[in-house]
């Protein structure tokens, strides 16, 4: 049987138009809360349109009308059957002080693992440089790190002119964007069942460990702390959190010990991944500023003790923030 399409469209159009109007309104206003009567009407319109689609699919070969109805039913279906929390207006302060630290704490095991992998990398890099100093070019393929630490410290401390004069802003922007890219890569490589994330974290640890031991062996521990701590106490945890996000993704992919299907597992974490990576971005903006405007200045311009103290304060504040902020408020989904 073929549907009398003209009659079918004439009869259905008012309903479809009303449904489309309601959908447009709901999609345009995420905070919209419909009164019960309108919710009932919406459901009624959805069922009517879905029935029209079923009728058309069964009795007619009219592709364009079918596509139109399919599109309408698909949108209404998404609105009605969506069980995730409705996206509301974004409140930056609430996100910063509550959502982000809560998300971090909810996946603290992944962070510990990220920390352990980096620590293993540090140990490897440190031991490698301690036992085989000739391996330095292999472990630290960056020209500015290959220099003899003592020589570098002497040069920095005796410098009479500001080598970053006029380029601090651009230097900090380059640091921010580069480190954020590395963090995104660390997260994204979680899709390799975590192998890529682990390699990134371990390699980061190797470089860090190698640099640290290289400077300590040269007796420049104080310089090292003064140089790295102001920005490092924020930058390194940021990379660790990016690693945490990558590992969360990997755990969801592997799904060991969980019965929920892959799609559900991935759906559960997508919000947390976004939250963590945006948090990482903020941390790296701060770290970029500090590295360009503070970390690169040494004694006699800025005393090492002041830089170390600044780093310690940052570390304590960061720890308190991640451990306590939003702790007494209701945890998100």
């Amino acid at each position, binding site marked *: *049987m073929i549907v009398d399409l003209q009659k079918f*469209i004439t009869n259905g159009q008012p309903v479809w138009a009303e449904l489309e109007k309601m959908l447009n309104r709901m*999609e345009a206003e995420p905070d919209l809360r419909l009164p019960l009567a309108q919710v009932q009407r919406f459901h009624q319109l959805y069922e009517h349109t879905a029935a029209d689609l079923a009728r058309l699919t069964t009795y007619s070969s009219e592709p364009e009308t079918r*596509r139109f109805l399919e599109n309408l039913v698909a949108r209404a279906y998404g609105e009605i*059957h969506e069980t995730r929390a409705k996206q509301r207006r974004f409140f930056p302060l609430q996100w910063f002080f509550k959502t982000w630290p809560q998300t971090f704490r909810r996946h603290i095991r992944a962070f510990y693992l990220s920390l352990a992998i980096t620590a293993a990398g540090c140990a490897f890099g440190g031991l490698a440089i301690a036992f085989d100093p000739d391996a330095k070019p292999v472990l630290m393929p960056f020209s500015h790190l290959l220099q003899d630490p003592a020589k570098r410290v002497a040069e920095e401390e005796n410098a009479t002119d500001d080598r970053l004069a006029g380029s601090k802003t*651009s230097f900090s922007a380059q640091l921010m964007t580069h480190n954020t890219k590395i963090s995104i890569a660390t*997260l994204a490589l979680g*899709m390799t069942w975590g192998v890529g994330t682990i390699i990134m974290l371990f390699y980061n640890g190797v470089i860090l460990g190698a640099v640290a031991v290289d400077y300590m062996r040269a007796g420049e521990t104080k310089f090292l702390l003064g140089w790295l701590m102001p920005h490092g106490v924020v930058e390194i945890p940021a990379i660790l959190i990016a690693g945490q996000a990558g590992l969360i993704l990997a755990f969801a992919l592997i799904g060991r010990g969980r019965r929920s299907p892959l799609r559900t597992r*991935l759906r559960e974490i*997508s919000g947390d991944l976004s939250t963590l990576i945006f948090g990482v971005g903020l941390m790296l903006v701060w770290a970029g500023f500090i590295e360009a405007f503070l970390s690169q200045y040494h004694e006699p311009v800025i005393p090492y003790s002041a830089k170390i103290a600044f780093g310690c304060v940052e570390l304590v504040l960061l720890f308190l923030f991640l451990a306590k902020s939003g702790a007494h408020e209701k945890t998100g989904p």
Partner: protein
Amino acid sequence: MKTSTLIIRTPEGIVFSQLLAGPVSRFTACFIDQLCIQAALTVFGTLLSLVMVFSLSFAIAFYAIGYFIVSIGYGILFEWVWRGQTVGKKLLRLRVMDVEGMRLQFNQIVVRNLLRFVDSLPVFYFVGGVTCWLNSKGQRLGDIAANTVVVRNPQMAEPDLDQLLAGKFNSLRQYPHLVARLRQNVTPAEADIALQSLLRREEFDPVQRVELFGEIANHFHGKVEFPAEAIDGVADEQFLRNVVDVIYRTRPETAAAGRVQPL
């Protein structure tokens, strides 16, 4: 199994389908988006040349940050504001949607765009392209992680029944009761075959076209037996035109039947 259609079945038992986008159309859309990003960066760079007059360092910093934000944020912003579409996707009529037909969430858009990093490895979205090709729903890694698919909404070419049927006398209409029975007996698939054969007549070899129309006409002759005076001397192709006319246009004057009016 790889299919070109995403079929979603609602709890009410309604089934709706969405055509999945292939790797080539997606890559083309991505290429267009890259051109848009480059254009935006060129404009941005030109504007920054004014800042350069005051401070070169500031100009470089702004450009570095601007480049980063535009290249990462372009997809996120457009897909969020345009409900799953970027400029490239809009031009190619593609759209990102939730794999289960749910509302596309901001987090999903962020995840699928951030994971472009792995999809673009080692060059030219090789990993993403291969994954998309192998995946049953045509998803790249970012889509898998975000539970999204890219669907295409092809522009439906509305058959011009007026031109197709040319307003000729339709002998079948002399027998409304038989026409009604024909409409009752013909399935949508059969009706579509008749319509498509007429729409695509120029694509067939002349000899094969005659054979094809003959076979289809025979099939419809079997559905309802019209009196000899209604079909004698009517060529198979004309008979099919008459069949399509009575199936798709309930009344001869309703030439616009079958077209969706703008709502």
